[in-house]
């Protein structure tokens, strides 16, 4: 009965979405206040029903109900409960249901919480939100129902792919989806504003927290995903330019641009049309991402389903949403009045440059990701790999890092070159010194790595330059947030450059007791022992590592080769030891006929900075959000008091 109840809840939620759309449209068109008033409660009910449906799916997974096809295909009765739980969205149908649930809950949250927007824009926003949700409901109910029964029921189930059996990954998709869906709200706001023509500072202030929140979730999702790929896949790299990784990077790039342009709109009422455009683009990118991941159209190590019907269904949705929004933009943008002007050398000008560079990177990633599809359509098989992305996007990313150092030092509206140059003297000198030092120490490192390290050092100092001559206690929280986020980028860039310039790698057929050398480390495989876990068995290498004198302190590394019985799969579990100056990374391969074990070793100086920096960026975003929300609250209270 649970599956049927879940399906029923999903149908009712879809019906609510249809009602929400119709009521918003009719209410606004006919100026029926009663209809408009009723849109909010309907949105709240829709959110509750979608959540109920998803909750029931989770319950089916927790109970290992093998009479449900999806559970049988993606779960196993002997699996740890956490992975039964995460199994609910570790598959195509479940993840789509999660998507629409988050979307519906976000709509409910707007209906409950949003007080700044004028009512017409809010109603139009909720209508747009319902329109997006309807497509996904249709997709679930028609093309891929998660509640289909299996008759006769399976005995144990197929199990969840062992590579997905990782606590980090269990919560990775929801994190990204919060980000995608946050952008859908920004999109709905933009559509609402285009319909009513109310685009101004108040609109930007209403949209900003959603963009910030979405951006924080995307940042966390991308950072965590990168670290997951790094330790779980055992290949020692942290970014692959895989289409699925790009699928999360593209919305992030667009959201980053939007985040900065929405600030211009909120603070100076400039960049109106451009901000609307970015809101449309950012959500389009999360739809393109969903499409790429779910359609299986690209060779990816992540894509779930290879099913052309689903692919074409999502493609139609994509065309409908993006095409519709762009058409609306084309029709309505003329009605949006031009905002305030500004000098090119100003904070606004700096943010325009930031937007330009981000858009160009986005374009490159998009071209590189979609080019193989286009080529395939024209009858040529090809794939675009990391060399393309690094070569094309790398230099522009470095230019962006340089621009980031200067931008926040500029004044709004108008500034002059000399004071800016004076403020940049210290960071620029430091950058040049670091470049020279790196070149002297490691002349073989590529120019991008050398420049990257220098710029990272410069940006790290410049990030906190806005504090210059200010009383620390009077600096607002969102300014701290911005500085920390920019500093986080510097930290991350330093990690990337250091990893790619200084990593040492070693692949050996190891005999017991014999020393091998990687970077400053002396590594010995002492033996191999069997170990057993919840639903796997493994052989585990006992590896000791030391550096400096032979009798110095030892590290113990335990790389494993695991065997999961359902589904039958071998996986390698890397063992990583984190030191203050980097990570030692060991992967155990197979044993050969002479009893030697394949052992792959990496010494990666300062690689942890990449994810630490990502964490700082997210933290900065969160602080900024907190600061903005606090200030808005205070202003609202003041306005109320003034009215009394």
């Amino acid at each position, binding site marked *: 009965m649970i599956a049927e109840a879940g399906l029923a809840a999903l149908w009712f939620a879809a019906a609510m979405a249809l009602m929400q759309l119709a009521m918003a449209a009719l209410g606004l068109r006919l100026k029926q206040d009663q209809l408009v008033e009723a849109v909010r409660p309907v949105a709240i009910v829709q959110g509750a029903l979608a959540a109920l449906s998803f909750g029931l799916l989770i319950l089916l997974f927790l109970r290992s109900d093998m009479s449900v096809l999806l559970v049988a295909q993606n779960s196993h009765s002997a699996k740890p409960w956490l992975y039964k739980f995460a199994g609910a969205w570790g598959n195509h149908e479940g993840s789509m249901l999660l998507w629409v649930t988050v979307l519906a809950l976000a709509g409910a949250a707007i209906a409950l919480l949003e007080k700044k927007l004028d009512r017409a824009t809010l109603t139009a926003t909720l209508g747009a939100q319902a329109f997006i949700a309807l497509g996904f409901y249709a997709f679930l109910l028609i093309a891929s129902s998660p509640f289909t029964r299996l008759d006769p029921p399976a005995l144990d189930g197929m199990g969840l792919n062992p590579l997905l059996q990782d606590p980090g990954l269990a919560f990775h998709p929801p994190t990204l989806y919060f980000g995608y869906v946050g952008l859908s709200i920004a999109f709905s706001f933009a559509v609402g504003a285009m319909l009513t023509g109310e685009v101004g500072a108040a609109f930007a202030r209403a949209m900003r927290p959603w963009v910030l929140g979405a951006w924080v979730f995307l940042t966390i999702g991308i950072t965590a995903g990168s670290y997951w790929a790094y330790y779980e896949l055992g*290949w020692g790299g942290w970014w692959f330019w895989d289409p699925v990784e790009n699928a999360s990077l593209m919305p992030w790039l667009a959201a980053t641009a939007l985040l900065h342009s929405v600030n211009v709109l909120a603070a100076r009422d400039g960049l109106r049309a451009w901000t609307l455009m970015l809101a449309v683009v950012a959500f389009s990118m999360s739809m393109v991402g969903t499409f790429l991941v779910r359609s299986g159209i690209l060779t990816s*190590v992540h894509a779930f389903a290879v099913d052309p019907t689903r692919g074409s269904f999502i493609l139609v949705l994509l065309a409908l949403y993006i095409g519709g929004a762009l058409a609306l933009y084309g029709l309505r943008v003329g009605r949006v009045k031009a905002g305030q002007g500004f000098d090119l050398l100003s904070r606004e000008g700096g943010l325009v440059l930031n937007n330009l560079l981000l858009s160009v990177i986005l374009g490159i990633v998009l071209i590189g990701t979609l080019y193989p599809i286009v080529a395939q359509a024209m009858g040529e098989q090809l794939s675009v790999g990391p060399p393309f992305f690094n070569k094309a996007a790398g230099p522009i990313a470095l230019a962006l890092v340089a621009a980031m150092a200067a931008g926040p030092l500029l004044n709004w509206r108008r500034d002059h070159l000399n004071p800016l140059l004076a403020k940049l003297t210290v960071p620029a000198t430091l950058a040049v010194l670091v470049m020279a030092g790196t070149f002297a120490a490691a002349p073989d490192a590529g120019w991008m790595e050398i420049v990257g390290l220098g710029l990272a050092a410069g940006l790290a100092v410049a990030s906190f330059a806005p504090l210059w001559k200010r009383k620390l206690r009077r600096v607002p929280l969102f300014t701290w947030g911005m500085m920390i986020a920019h500093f986080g980028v510097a930290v991350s860039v330093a990690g990337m450059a250091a990893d790619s310039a200084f990593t040492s790698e070693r692949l050996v057929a190891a005999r017991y007791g014999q020393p091998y050398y990687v970077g400053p480390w002396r590594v010995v495989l002492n033996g191999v022992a069997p170990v057993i876990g919840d639903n796997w068995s493994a052989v585990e290498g006992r590896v000791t590592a030391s550096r400096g004198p032979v009798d110095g302190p030892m590290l113990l590394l335990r790389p494993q080769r695991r065997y999961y019985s359902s589904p039958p799969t071998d996986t390698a579990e890397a063992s990583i030891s984190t030191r203050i100056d980097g990570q030692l990374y060991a992967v155990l391969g197979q044993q050969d006929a002479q009893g030697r074990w394949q052992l792959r070793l990496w010494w990666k100086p300062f690689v942890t900075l990449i994810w630490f920096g990502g964490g700082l960026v997210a933290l900065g975003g969160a602080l900024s959000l907190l600061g903005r929300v606090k200030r808005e609250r205070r202003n609202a209270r003041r306005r109320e008091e003034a009215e009394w």
Partner: protein
Amino acid sequence: MKRKHQRLILGLVALVAIGGASGLALSALQDQAAFFYTPGDVATKKPPAGRAVRLGGMVETGSLKRLSDGVTISFVVADKDAKVPVRFTGVAPDLFKEGSGVVAEGKFTSDGGFVADNLLAKHDERYMPPEIADKMPSPDTLVK
């Protein structure tokens, strides 16, 4: 500065940026894009030796061998049209096995073999690279 002039300058800057980026992207695509080959393609249009490409197909059952240095393997990538011998030095990915799909990144050698410096196998055990899916009999699916 007049607003009109400013727009003009901004437009020009944007054009230069986009032009430069397209230039970068195109030149990178030209000499860096790894072209994708199936064994069947190799038989008909001979790929240039020494150029970074991707080779996709199925690992032929019974072809996987380990060489005496302990870290190099050799195997045959096949589709229904042709076969290509491949050599790879390194730890093969977890889902790499005989009878399943693989995409090998590397270079063709002058004798028609392939030296891979990276192997891609997929997370999912039901996986087959889409590029070769239409050239192979469909893989077994589960509960029907």
